[in-house]
């Protein structure tokens, strides 16, 4: 067996970014166990961050450039897919609010801005629960990606931020791109719109600073690989597999915090149309009780964690 093929062009063997550090300029490489210990308020070991995906999925959402996680599964017009997700904003989220309120917890809602105009009653409840609201794009069909023109993307960011700040004011500080998808300039546009933390990148357990053309942002470790949507929806696992993983993650992070003297963050990323189902809500309560039964747990919103992190570094 031999081959006389010519092979690929020389450019396939060029490595413009082969150097010490990462292959981009947004932030330096950091090694988790070598970072300076972070002190949480009250010397807590683990900050408990509950982040809730409050998305709106239009029934006619495009499946280009790719289908967003949780996008319509069946051909148009899929009433099943649309209403299954809309259930989250009608019913599921109220169950989450009750479960959290009962335990003195406040979530950070990663919110599609169209919900602010579609469901004002829901917005009042969110405000009354003292949840933090972070901008989660316009809706789940408005994906930020490399093929988007700069002005088009800038308009999406501005629209989402202006709408949500119109309802919730300056307290809207965080950003989550629908489906964790960005273009090369999303971070610049988010900083330009006056926000100060982002939740799209899933490469760390702790916050870090990100450079943009409009100042610095803080990256917050939103869970994706351990989110309810990933496990319960994409991977078809049982509710107990989700709560088991969350407990395992908590045990690991809690032990690491004790061993290193530096705080950690457990992020529970929840989706109202999944974890807010009647057959799952008790398991969520049990999970929260398990975590809160430990000393040294600091329940906090995303912006509270960002502020505490910035104060110690």
């Amino acid at each position: 067996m031999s081959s006389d093929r010519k092979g690929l062009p020389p450019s396939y063997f060029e490595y413009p970014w082969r150097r010490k550090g990462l292959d981009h300029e947004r932030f330096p490489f950091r090694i988790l166990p070598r970072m300076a210990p972070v002190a949480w308020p009250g010397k807590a070991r683990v900050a408990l961050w509950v982040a809730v995906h409050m998305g709106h999925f239009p029934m006619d959402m495009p499946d280009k450039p790719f289908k967003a996680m949780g996008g319509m599964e069946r051909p148009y017009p899929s009433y099943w897919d649309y209403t299954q997700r809309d259930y989250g904003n009608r019913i599921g989220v109220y169950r989450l609010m009750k479960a959290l309120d009962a335990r003195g917890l406040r979530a950070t809602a990663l919110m599609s801005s169209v919900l602010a105009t579609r469901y004002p009653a829901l917005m009042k409840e969110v405000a009354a629960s003292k949840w933090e609201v972070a901008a989660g794009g316009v809706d789940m069909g408005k994906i930020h990606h490399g093929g988007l023109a700069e002005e088009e993307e800038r308009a999406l960011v501005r629209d989402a931020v202006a709408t949500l700040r119109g309802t919730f004011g300056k307290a809207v500080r965080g950003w989550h791109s629908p489906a964790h998808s960005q273009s090369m300039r999303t971070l610049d546009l988010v900083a330009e719109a006056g926000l100060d933390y982002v939740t799209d990148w899933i490469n760390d357990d702790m916050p870090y600073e990100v450079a943009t053309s409009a100042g610095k942002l803080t990256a917050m470790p939103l869970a994706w690989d351990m989110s309810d949507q990933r496990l319960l929806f994409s991977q078809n696992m049982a509710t107990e597999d989700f709560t088991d993983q969350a407990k395992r993650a908590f045990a690991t992070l809690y032990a690491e915090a004790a061993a290193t003297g530096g705080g950690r963050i457990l992020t529970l990323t929840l989706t109202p149309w999944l974890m807010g189902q009647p057959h799952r809500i008790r398991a969520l309560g049990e999970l929260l009780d398990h975590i809160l039964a430990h000393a040294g747990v600091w329940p906090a919103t995303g912006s509270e964690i960002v502020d505490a992190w910035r104060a110690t570094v």
Partner: protein
Amino acid sequence: MLAEPGHYDYAPYTGRPRIVWPGGARIAVWLAPNIEHYELEPPNNPRKVPWARPVPDILNYTHRDYGNRAGFWRMADVMAKHGVRGSVSLNVALCDHFPEIIERCCELGWELFSHGTYNTRYFYDLSEEQQRMLIADSRETILKYSGQSLDGWLTPAITNDETTQHVLAEEGIKYTLDFVHDDQPMPMKVRKGRLISVPYSLEVNDVPLYQNRNTPVDRYTEMVKAQFDQLYAEGAESGTVMCLPLHPFLSGAPQRIAGLDAALAHIVAHDGVWLATGREIAAWYTEHYYDAFTRWLDAGTPGGRR
């Protein structure tokens, strides 16, 4: 196109020359952490587009980056706790990007072998000369950063060409991991030189299990233990090899690390286990069994095609 790889003849799992591992061990267990870097903006290969989403696919890019920032360090600590070394399936450009990781591997006495330059640069459609150039890069980079020789090979993202194994043998690679056809090392038929396969695994491999087959963590542990128990039992007759491939971005996550910890605790609690590296397994087999297996194969194995 080939109808089969052509690098081996059928060899039944019976009547084989008996393998005994060092110290009379019945099973050689080796761990293969895949320490990888996926580029943010890689070039397209004509036969495989690197990212599922349009560039920049920040979700999948950062998920893998997690392994180098956090997962690797946790995984390495657990392996060290059990006295188990790794044989690193290494994207060699990682030596340049993150030398801290290579220092830690060397400090733990781990082997480095090549898994190509980046996991986003494939072997599909390369000429033989281009494959040789990349193997040379791997050899030089590993030598420069660790002082080790390049002995083992797993083609990046398993994108081998029909010629790759021949080129590997000619370039002095001693063992290949591109085959999962056996639970023992096997001689490979190549144009010239000598090459053996060492068992790798797609079964007890955290990527297929955690990413594709939606395996809960406790099931992962049970599968690894069952894999070990069976190969351990069979090893009483003739030595077997168990490979546990790992990916730090998955197994090193806080929700999964205890699953690996429990699996390793089970394995190291047994006598008669040789906790080896890929290089050590290949060397022992080549020294003691290569000729015996070759003679057995050449004589025409029962049920074989010769």
